Structure formats: C-alpha cells, structure tokens
C-alpha cells in the first residue's frame, strides 16, 4: 500500500529525514518508536504534504500513485489520514460542519455524491457514540476548549467518519488516561484493523500497543529506521530504552 524509499526531507534548511525506507502492506499495523526529536512527526507531515517540509531525495508511492506529487487535500481524498499530535482549534466552526465539508470535499474529488445532512449525521452519531463522545461535543467548535484527551478522542471520531485507507497516528495515545486509552485503542482496531487498510502508529509507549497489536515495530532515530522487529521489540525498548539499543 505504502512504499517509502530512501526519503530525505528538510524542515527549513535543516535535514531531518535522512534516507528512510519503509513498506506497509494492506492489513498491517506498523508502530514507529523513537526518542524525542527523532523525526517521527516530521515523517507524518512529509507524508501528508505539509508546506515547509521539503523532500530533497527519495520517493513515496501510495497505492501505486506518486504521493509526493499530490496536494495535502488530494492525499486526504486518496485515503490518507493524519491523526495530529497537537490537534488544531478552529473557532466558530463546529466539528459537524468541519467534518461534513471535509468529507464531502473528499467525495467530490473522488467523483462520489455528497452526503446529505441526514446521512452525514447518522455516520457522525455512530462514530461519536462508539468513541464515547456526546453529540454536544460534535456541535462545538473544532477542538476549542477541548482537553488534551478530548482532542485525541476527537481525532479518532474524525478518522471513523472519514474512514481512510491509511492512518498515520502521531502520538494519539499521549494525554490519555487509562480508560480513554482503551477506548481509543478499541477505536483504532474497529476502524482500521481491516484487510484493505493499514496503520502507521507513532508512539513513545508500549501501553497503546497492549490494545493495538502491531505487526511490525520500527525504531526511528536520527532520521532513518535503525531497527525493525515484531511486537516484542516494543517491550524490549520499554525495558532498555533507546540508548541501550543504539549502543
């Protein structure tokens, strides 16, 4: 589904990704772990086309398409979803309005008919319900006044409504209490654990991986993948830390 080959990228003038190679097949969940500043968020931004993140070398193919040639909204329409480490507030725009417009913009781009208000609300209600978010919250402005945990939960509601093929989830687990972590973990499994979908799970902690079992775990350090293993690698990292591993 996703092939990243020898990816180099700068933020401003500073090289951050330095030859990153990674492949995800449909049906797989990959976890990426690594120390602060390793370039994990940068990878998510580069894959979703954030302005200011400049690819200097390498290629990325997503379902056969040259991903890097697409605008951010085109990548979204092609099925890519980025769960933000720091979800953004948009005052005066309700979650419902935001998501309906976003979803219908994607559908339009793909040549699909827009969802009516009623159809959309049905989907939104289901997804919010499954993630334990009440409808009042969906009517509130996007992320405004939400707690850190509520923002992350909201990212998952958005993912459920948009129903992407590939989700890159950037530290979706940070800021969640134990109950919320379970809800979010269940949500990821329910929405994304499907034969035709894939997930790139960026996390610092093993605890989310108790709920969402990864098929592969990668260590990202110094802008490239330094080690790849199965679910047990995460446990090893938790026990020994990145330093031990590098040594």
């Amino acid at each position, binding site marked *: 589904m996703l092939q990243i080959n020898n990816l180099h990228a700068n933020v401003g003038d500073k090289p951050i990704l330095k030859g990153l190679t990674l492949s995800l097949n449909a049906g797989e969940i990959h976890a990426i772990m690594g120390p602060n500043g390793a370039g994990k968020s940068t990878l998510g931004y580069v894959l979703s086309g954030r302005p200011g993140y400049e690819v200097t070398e390498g290629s990325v193919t997503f379902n056969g398409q040259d991903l890097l040639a697409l605008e951010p909204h085109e990548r979204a329409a092609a099925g890519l979803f980025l769960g933000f480490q720091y979800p953004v507030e948009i005052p005066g725009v309700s979650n419902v309005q*935001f998501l309906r417009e976003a979803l219908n913009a994607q559908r339009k781009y793909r040549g699909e008919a827009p969802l009516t208000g009623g159809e959309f609300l049905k989907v939104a209600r289901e997804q919010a319900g499954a993630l334990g978010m009440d409808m009042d919250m969906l009517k509130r402005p996007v992320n405004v006044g939400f707690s850190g945990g509520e923002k992350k939960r909201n990212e998952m509601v958005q993912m459920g409504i948009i129903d992407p093929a590939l989700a890159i989830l950037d530290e979706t687990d940070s800021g969640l209490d134990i109950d919320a972590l379970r809800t979010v973990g269940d949500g990821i499994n329910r929405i994304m654990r499907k034969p035709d979908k894939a997930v790139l799970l960026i996390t610092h902690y093993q605890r989310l991986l108790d709920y969402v079992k990864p098929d592969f775990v990668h260590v990202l350090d110094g802008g490239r993948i330094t080690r790849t293993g199965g679910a047990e690698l995460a446990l090893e990292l938790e026990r020994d830390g990145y330093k031990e591993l590098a040594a």
Partner: protein
Amino acid sequence: MTDDIEIKDKAAWDAAEKVADYEHGWSSDIETDFAPKGLNEDTVRFISAKKNEPEWMLEWRLKAFAMWKTMEAPDWAKLNVPPIDYQDAYYYAAPKAKPKLNSLDEVDPEILRVYEKLGIPIAEQKLLAGVEGGEDGGLPQRRVAVDAVFDSVSVATTFRAELDRAGVIFRSISEAIKEYPDLVRKYLGKIVPMHDNYFATLNCAVFSDGTFVYIPEGVRCPMELSTYFRINAENTGQFERTLIVADKGSYVSYLEGCTAPMRDENQLHAAVVELVALDDAEIKYSTVQNWYPGDAEGKGGIYNFVTKRALCQGRNSKVSWTQVETGSAVTWKYPSCVLNGENSVGEFYSVAVTNNHQQADTGTKMIHNGKGSRSTIVSKGISAGHSNNTYRGLVRVAPNAEGVRNFTQCDSLLLGSLSGAHTVPYIEVRNPSAQIEHEATTSKISDDQMFYAMARGLNAEEAVTLIVNGFAKEVLQQLPMEFAVEAQKLLGISLEGSVG
C-alpha cells in the same frame, strides 16, 4: 394563487427582465431613459418631474441641492478616494422597453427567473415559488416580499395585497410620497437631517427611488421585507432612499441586497436609510452588500458612501443592524442608533471583507440619550490582498442618561502580509454610571489551521472560506437563514485568489 405581484411600470419591468438574462457582472444593451448628464438645478427638476412629485418634494430637493453646493466632501476616513467629477455622471436612468401585453399570471415564472439572475437567495426563490402554488421541499412557509430597484426606479413589489391587509405599507418611496405624503413628510429627513453630511445632502437632492415601510401599531409584519438594488446603466449614480417607520409595539425584519455589473469606471452610490422605532417596536435591518469591487488591479468598482441611521425614539424600542460588506471599491458607511428611548437597545453586527485594492472604513455610532439604553457592537474585519479595512466606532453617553451599557467587540483577521486592519474607537462618556466595555483582537489565519483543514480534505480556498466563516460566525448567525447561506458563499467568493 392567493397573492399578487404589482408591476408598477410594465415597460421598465420588461426591460429589467431582459437585463436579468445576463449574469450580474454583465450589463445588457437595453434602452435606457437618462436624465441629461451632469448635475445642476435642472437635473433635480428633471428627476422630480419624471416622478410626478408634489411641489413640496421638489422644493425640498432644491433646498438640498443649494446646500450641497456649499459643502465639501469629508476627508477624515482612512480612505484614499480620487476626486469625483459630479458633472461626469448621470443622475437618473430608467430601463425603457416596449410594453408587452402579458397577464400577471404569465409574468410570475419570469419574476422568479429575474430574481434568480439577480442573485436572490435560492431559498427565497423556493418560497416565492411555494406561494405560487408550486411544491416546496419541506421548507417552512417563510415568505419574503421583494421590492426590486433597477438603476433609478422601483420595478416591482411582491405580496402587496397581503401586506395591505395587515396594514403594512411597503412601497417604493416615489409612490409613498404621492400616496402617503403626511406620513413621509413627518419622518423624511428627520433622522438623517438634510445637512447631515455631503453625501446625505446630495442624496436629498437627487434620490431616485428606494423603499418606504410603515408597520402600524401592534403589528408584527407577516413576512420579511426585502429590497434588491441593482445599478445597471453605465456612468450612473444610484441614490436610493429608504424610510422605515415601526409604530408602537410593531416588528419588522428588512433585508437589503445589491449587485452591479463590472465596469472600468467607478460608479457612485450614495444612499440614505432612515429608521424610526417607537415604543416597544423592533426593526431588524440586514444588508448583504455585494456591489462590484473593482478588478484585481483596483480598476473600477462602486464608491459606496452611505448614511444609515436609526432613531430608537420609544421606550424599549430596538434596532439591530446586521451587515455583510463584501463588495464596493470604497465603502464609507456607519449604520448608527440614536437611543433616545428609555431602555432602548441598539445593535450592530458587521462583517467587512476587503480584498485586492478594496478600501472599507465602516463602523457604527451608538448615541445613548435614554436612561438604561444598551448597545452591542460586534465587528469582524477581514482583509486580504492589498486592501485596507478600518473599523470606526463611536459610543457616546449623554450626561443624564443613567445606567447605560455598551459592549464592543472588534476582531480583525489578516490574510497575507500586504493588507491592513485598523480599529478606531471613540468613546465619549458624560455619565459616570455607564458601563462601557471594549475588546479588540487582530489575528492571522495560522498555517496550523490551514494545514489541519487541508489534511482533512479541503483545498486551500475551501479551508480559508471555512476558517473565515468561523471567524465571522457571531455576525452571520444574526442574519435570516437564507441570507446567512448566501453570505457564507459570498465570503468565500470575495476572498478568491487571496491564498497561494
């Protein structure tokens, strides 16, 4: 068919209908009946004669014209306006065409088509259609009576009979001068006096048409009233005049919309709107202003110099101005409330968008003379391109007005780095019991917001439109439903090209 549409000047209507075959932005080659070019006493007499006005009206106009000649254009606004050659314009233009012999029944669908081309909100068209007996997809029966003004003349008014039954007078001002001279004379020029300002005085001399509304005591106007103004003829100034009187305990919601075709030359628009609310009366006045703003280089566009003022004369009277200003090359406009009545209320909700080389200097005045009077001001300025957007507002409290309250919120949003936003509040409080609050913010659309919206599937323009609509929401939600939808779209359209 339960109601009628009165076509006042069949020839003018037919011409207007022909014009409507063009999208706004295009004017047609219809024949137009002009006054001679230029401005002198004869022009004033010509206009008055064309309208068969009574002698008192002509005298009033001539007095205003004499006064105007002694006045100078104001220069205190933060606007850069080249000198206007008042002799190089027409002051009266009426569409002219050969009369056709259609019955009213045949005209109905055409009216819908005309309004569609004029850009009247879709939902309103549906409502109009519903009244005609057509099916309407579950929309509540909210209806809007429309007065359409083309260049200098009012060409049609809808729902006349039903409004008449309710005792509501909804007429073009030319008709009202003849049919209800006492009522018109009692209020005309009493809220905005003839000498008020250069453009208002000019309007007194040459006003061509406009709308008169009277809501009798205790009557809640059975539907929304609306006027659509369109400047079509080349080189023509439009000077409309609106007078709305809400008698004791009455209520009316009035909508004003405007369009003009693209032209290279600037065209002058100088309207006067006067509102009076007596005891316990309420007037809600909403404007969506979409005059041609000029091209991306700043060529052409409407000069919009408008005087709008409300007199909240009665106890507990209330006037609410809501405006969405997206058009015009230059906007000079301060819808105000003189709050004379005890516990009277004034509100001003404004969104002003400027793009390219547009300039807007707009705001309000809240003059608190009555005890316990309250006012709310919410102004949202959005500037893009090379444009300049100024909020200018006055809050004044008279010495014996006890217990006055005002809340002002002024927010500016900047797109790009070449545009300007300015806030100029004047606060004059002469009574210590007054509570005055003023808050102001200036912000930019952040890269984070843009990317977040785009990562969810919106393209750059959709993302800007969404964020801007969120910014303006407090104001947009004051508009009647149909207008709000239209206004949201307009905000997006006016900001086109403002993001890379």
